[in-house]
């Protein structure tokens, strides 16, 4: 009985310590669990990039911030790698101010693997505020929204942009999104108004929201969270933080599941003892001391 009561009211700091160990442990000593299974949504993006004729233009929008970087940044690296392996041209832009800065970082992390020429193989247009309006504007004119790139070079000085007037000249859009403005804006404007193929890489927090878009075909594919990043890393055969993190992810999930089981076992055991509902029924564990 004492044990059951303990199970019903585990101190939150015990949970904290266990979670910390569950995450740090596998990073120090990898468990080498089998790789993630690739979902059809990730496969769809990969296949679409594969199917594009060499040299197609792809817009990659960096709409995330450092808070989402562990989830979305590995996707950015994996996706850019895939584009450059297939010799596609990449137009980078950002609807989040931190996104443009993270894009520069992403390019510098992978540039040694490819022979990239700025202005020819890729451009970084930088950031603009305005969200959906910016997408609507590049739907008719990139130069109107982005008179110059992130280094303040006018667009007409960039060979890549001389062939691209607006979204109609772009084969697909990949939005790396951590919230608003992000995937909804791209789907609603670039897909609905300008009929572009839109794919998304997003934090796991927002991924479930976009399943209706996937079902209706408004979005062609999606990478969800660090697991989505691991899937794409597996597809392009270049493991990174996404794959490295999956061991910790597995163990942490298992630990949380065990805690949930504990809570419910204790809840039902105590409820049977006290037919009126028991102490747990009045709202689960008593409020732990605020930290």
């Amino acid at each position, binding site marked *: 009985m004492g044990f059951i009561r303990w199970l019903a009211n585990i101190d939150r*700091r015990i949970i904290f310590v266990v*979670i910390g160990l569950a*995450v*740090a442990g596998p*990073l*120090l000593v990898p468990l080498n669990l089998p790789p993630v299974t690739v979902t059809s949504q990730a496969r769809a993006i990969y296949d679409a990039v594969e199917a594009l004729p060499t040299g197609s233009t792809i817009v990659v929008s960096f709409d995330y911030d450092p*808070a*989402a*970087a*562990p*989830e979305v940044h590995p996707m950015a690296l994996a996706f850019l790698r895939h584009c450059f392996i297939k010799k596609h041209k990449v137009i980078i832009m950002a609807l989040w*101010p*931190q996104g*443009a800065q993270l894009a520069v970082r992403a390019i510098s992390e992978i540039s040694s693997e490819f022979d990239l020429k700025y202005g020819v193989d890729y451009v970084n247009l*930088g*950031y*603009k*505020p305005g969200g*959906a*309006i910016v997408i*609507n504007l590049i739907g008719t004119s990139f130069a109107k929204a982005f*008179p*110059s790139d*992130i280094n*303040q*070079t*006018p667009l007409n*000085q960039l060979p890549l942009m001389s062939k691209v007037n607006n979204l109609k000249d772009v084969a697909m859009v990949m939005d790396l999104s951590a919230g608003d403005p992000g995937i*909804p804006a791209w*789907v*609603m*404007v670039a*897909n*609905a*108004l300008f009929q572009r193929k839109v794919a998304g890489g997003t*934090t*796991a*927090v927002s*991924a*479930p*929201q976009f399943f*209706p878009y996937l*079902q*209706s*075909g*408004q979005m062609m594919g999606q990478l*969800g*969270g*660090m*697991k989505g990043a691991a899937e794409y890393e597996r597809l392009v055969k270049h493991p990174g*933080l996404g794959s*490295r*993190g999956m061991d*910790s*992810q597995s163990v*942490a*999930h298992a630990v*949380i599941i065990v805690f949930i089981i504990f809570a419910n076992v204790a809840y039902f055991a105590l409820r049977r003892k006290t037919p009126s509902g028991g102490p747990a029924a009045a709202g689960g564990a008593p409020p732990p001391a*605020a*930290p």
Partner: protein
Amino acid sequence: MDGLTFIGTWIAALLTLFIFSFLYKDNPFYKFAEYLFVGVSAGYFVAYNYHNAILPNLIRPLFAAGSVDVPKGAVLRLLQDGAWDWRILTILAGLLGLTMLFRFFPKAAWVSRYGIAFSVGLGAGLSFITYLQANCVAQVYGTILPPAVINNGVFDFGTSLTNTLLIIGVVSGLVYFYFSKEHRGAVGGVARVGVWFLMVSFGASFGYTIMARISLLIGRMDFLITDWIKGTLRFLGLM
């Protein structure tokens, strides 16, 4: 790793630990990081918007001195060459933007209505079209599915069940939203089913949320282990 990176990594690691100290209890170190974070972020937004929006989209089209790369600004063209340039209307954008600042002065707050009305009006125009088309019509269209599917003369049980459940879920969910006050009768029953579907979505969302937060923790732990501890050891020549 050079000296600047070394110092930076240590500052970053200390700030990381300041924030994690909240796990023990709320304390001044956490508060320090919290307030600093808010201040630095706001400063970042302002500076970034100046360089990425105000400068290229407002100041340069009007006042650029003119070079091989950048055409001369519209104001300078008018003043120096007497030439008319439609880009001079960009001044209006600047004025609309400036009106926003009047919000802080009670007597002149009405001036700020122009900037707000302009953005709200334009936003409403775009939202009207996009939400109607992408989130309403396209989503309803995506729900109009055959509840019984026959493939090559064989009844496809899986797809039929999926379609049927999808239709029931969407309809009952909408009933829950629009008649949430009615808890009785047939409508109440349908709304109850709607809540069940919503609970499944919320559960899925929470499962994903847990996954997301764990991933972020993995990111920070990876920083502490790889960049900070191993980086420092390498910097000091111990590894």
